[in-house]
């Protein structure tokens, strides 16, 4: 099968050329713009003080925004409303101590776990925004070594 080396080459090349792309251009919009984050209070992962959002996932959201030079806009609401908003791409990210077993897989896309205890902890993004999903997962992986420490700090 002579096509395989070409295929592998194409894949490597593609990664260099900014593939995958978003279906609706989330990364392009967020970069240097506004990151719209849905927030569900769920300590120690998300601690919503009303004026600021802290906790592990608050820190992670900050890191993502910083990576793209974006300003964060928080939106509060019940879980199902926020997930619905992800589906219609009115939000870019939902943080709320979600674990990989939540029944929202059809409405939202879940990231790979950034931390695993008895649950696999994930964030949620709009489905089909794959460049965005890749971006978020890359930032999460960079912060993976710090998560244990962050949880301990947030729990105090």
């Amino acid at each position, binding site marked *: 099968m002579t096509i*395989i080396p070409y295929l592998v080459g194409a*894949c490597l090349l593609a990664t260099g050329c900014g593939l995958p792309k978003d279906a609706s251009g989330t990364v392009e919009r967020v970069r240097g713009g506004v990151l719209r984050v849905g927030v569900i209070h769920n300590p120690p992962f998300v601690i919503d003080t009303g004026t600021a959002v802290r906790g592990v996932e608050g820190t992670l959201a900050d890191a993502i925004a910083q990576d793209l030079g974006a300003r964060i806009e928080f939106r509060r609401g019940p879980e199902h409303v926020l997930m619905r908003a992800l589906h219609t791409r009115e939000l870019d990210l939902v943080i709320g101590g979600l674990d990989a077993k939540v029944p929202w897989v059809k409405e939202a896309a879940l990231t790979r776990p950034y931390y695993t205890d008895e649950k696999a902890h994930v964030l949620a993004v709009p489905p089909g925004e794959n460049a965005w999903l890749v971006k978020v997962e890359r930032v999460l992986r960079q912060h993976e070594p710090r998560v244990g420490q962050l949880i301990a700090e947030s729990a105090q």
Partner: protein
Amino acid sequence: MNPFPVYVFQPELAHERERARRLSWLSIWLLMSAALLMAFTVGNSQTMKTAWVSDVLSLVPPIALLIAMRVELHPPTERFPYGYTRAISISFLVTAAVLSLFGLMLFIDAALKLFRGERPPIGTVVIFGRQIWAGWTMIAALAYSLSCGFLVGRLKLPVAHKLQDRALAADAKMNHDEWMSEGAAILGLLLVAFGYWWGDAGSAAIISLNIMRDAWETIQQVIADLMDEAPNVLDRHQLEDLPQRVREAVKRYDWVAEAAVRLREHGHLITGDIFVVPREHTDLPARVERVAQELATVDWRLHSLTVMPVATLDQTTPAHPG
């Protein structure tokens, strides 16, 4: 004569059958390895899920073939006095049922996703410490699966022709045609990579149509088997001239005035009835028995032929349609 004969393959053909058996095992292992690789990468992609099911389904024909090859040469029994040679038809039936069921299910699944605008989220995986988009690993797994199908399809086809084996030929074609499924899946994932979300469910729909097409071809084969179809040229919808050749061979006996032949496929073999109008009646039973034995040499697939002496024949060939 023995009314319950056991078919024995000549050494050369038995050797080819052994090759067919080994190739079936090779397909099973290769396709299973591809299925395993795909299972690890499947994620949230509909096209990947469909290609995976399609890959697993292509395990059904070789397994059915292996079972049929074990069963078909059993000697006839009280319950099955005509023997077990048609076991292969049952494997066709099973394959057709499984394929049409899954094909339809996957098509509905893909169509609903397209209709509802469900977009495939495909994130990253970490391989050897590098974090890459899962789409690339899916494409790699698909490329592997594609090569496996292509390879086993290519290997099986010549053996199928030597054995005049319809089941093996259909299986080889199905393996070979898998490149269309995997190719469509790769294309779908590339579309997703470029931000066209419908590429995923769209290519899944194409693959499920491909599965249904396989199912339809198998169903046609099952129907033909149930209808006792005359021997057919492999790979083509064309009747063989074997009945005519047998009839000519019978008529070459100088004690035969007139003859009529009807043959049908009997699993891998061919069986049927030969009606003869004898010119002389001395020693008729022995003559009839000898003809039955000698005619089996016209084609190696002929097996368990019945020769029936009659007083007159109204018709010596069946009607041509149209």
